[in-house]
């Protein structure tokens, strides 16, 4: 999966979770950029991303992830294995 494809898939997940088809995410997107993305919704978002890509984030990764770009880094490293 290319980085572009990862982002395309992530867009779909974000759109479903926040029920908003206008959302597009980029490298620097953070919770501050999406209105409904609060700490509680974050849990559901992480679970939906894991399910979509068939991966599992570790606690350490979830804690340190700073933006969607870093999320994509972890996804790409896991689906390569």
């Amino acid at each position, binding site marked *: 999966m290319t980085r572009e494809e990862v982002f395309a898939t992530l867009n779909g997940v974000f759109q479903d979770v926040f029920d908003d088809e206008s959302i597009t995410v980029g490298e620097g997107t953070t919770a501050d950029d999406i209105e409904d993305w609060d700490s509680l919704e974050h849990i*559901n978002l992480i679970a939906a991303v894991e*399910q979509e890509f068939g991966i599992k984030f570790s*606690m350490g990764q979830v804690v340190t992830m700073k933006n969607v770009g870093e999320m994509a880094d972890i996804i790409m490293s896991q689906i390569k294995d």
Partner: protein
Amino acid sequence: MKELEYPFDSDYILKNARKLKRILSGQDIGRIKKKIAVLGGSTTHDIVRILEIFLLHQGIEPEFYESEYGQYFQDAMFGNPELDAFAPDLIYIHTSSRNIASYPAPGDNAETVEAMLEEQYAHFSSMWDKLEGTYHCPVIQNNFEYPFYRLLGNRDAVGVNGRIRFLTRLNERFYQHAESHGNFYIHDINYISSAYGLDKWADPFYWHMYKYCLCMQAIPEFSYNLCNMIKAVFGKNKKALVLDLDNTLWGGIVGDDGAENIEIGQETSMGQVYAEFQAYIKEHKDIGVMLNVNSKNEEENALAGLNHPAGILKPEDFILIKANWEPKSKNMADIAAELNILPESLVFVDDNPAEREIVRMQFPGAAVPEIGRPEQYIHILDRSGFFEVTSLSEDDKKRSDMYKANLMREKQQAGFADYGEYLKSLKMKGIVRSFEPVYMARIAQLTNKSNQFNLTTRRYTQSEIEQTAASPDHITLYGKLEDRFGDNGVVSVVIGEKKEKTLHIDLWIMSCRVLKRDMEYAMMDRLVEECGKAGIAAITGYYYPTAKNRMVENFYGLQGFAKAEEDENGNTVWVYDIPKHYEKKNRYIEIIER
């Protein structure tokens, strides 16, 4: 909505919860509104979010109060103005084995452990007592799931110091409390967690990251199970099963293969599967579920199949057997009409996806589960929770007999030229009295189940019924009816509030199965008598139309009331001035006095 029916795709529901809620909120299906307070010992956000969707799907529009993180005990014990103002219709206490303050240590002796058990139990029971005294509403309490590790290995289940043993004993104490408190229910997360798989359920990731006592992916199953209890408490259970025969209750086609060749019984593996399924269905009779057949068959062949010597279900276990070549949706409509119940009270079980689809399209409202392969039938029906039992009344156990007796009455009626003669032949005996303690559960149940013969559609919990019965400002009546075919149990309830010299009728309901038997007149007669004793001069009745209660639109008119008001929504107010010499209206029921 298929996405929300068991077996569902949990990941899909979690991800698309917002969309599902948006769609459900857009449907106007006349939901009942309920206020639910969630008192959490751990994070409840997603549990509530998903619960809301399932409740909307069940016809309940919830409003939630959620305690601050982990504040269940504080909210319950020390008062909370916000919770008081919220005035919950139901309280759910979401605690788990993560909330046990102290567990036995390996060195503790039996007395020490006993004291710990007492202390833990008292923590909860004092809270339940407090809630009961303050809010008078149903309380649902989680039991405890097992922890994800066992320090003592297998001995953890046996030794007094073991956590498994400790939780098992504590759970047993919870059940004892539930047995002696009618309005207190246990949400069995111990079962749901083991069915889900404890290792996945108790994934420490979700506890340490987000303070969830279960993993995210298990939340839809969790909330679904909880929703089933809540809908049952609010009278939204299904009432009847409508079953196909060929390849549903036995293997093979009885019309083609012959009754002797259908697969049922112990000879083959498939025969055993069907026999176990038949036994499972038969047990539903004892919890008050009415069994019916809807099959494309000659009736003769259907009966031959049901009389198979190795079969568990026999023709007499069913109330209605529709074995014909009519569309199944038409049979469904006939069954609902003959049993006098609403389409949404029926569950249709058929192995054939095409028949299921036709019933879904042509007979909306009924539950039509995707029951899968024969070896999955029990699992899927069971976990669907259509008939979740919150309490078992005597009437539940006898329901099938009561409905059968009703059908015999109807047959009998056909033989009488004069309806009055028929009513006389029934030799009816009735009891009409103020609420009595033994019937409080049944009365509350009726107020939640009656939709058609229901003037105000006001719902009461059992504790509200008890409070009303004890109130000096109310007149309460229940009516019980018996005839030569059997006992119908409690079938009618009236509640009126006294204001000066007038009685205002808050509730007047009757079970449709005793329609046109003079029972409504017997209730009126006693109501007038009670008003006389209380010095009441007039009665005011109210009719609030719903999608289901058109049949009683003119009920008060028939009782001799005069219409006083009507608004643009069809709400009407009726007045009855009690005459000096009231002539009793009931002519056919012999009323048993004390």
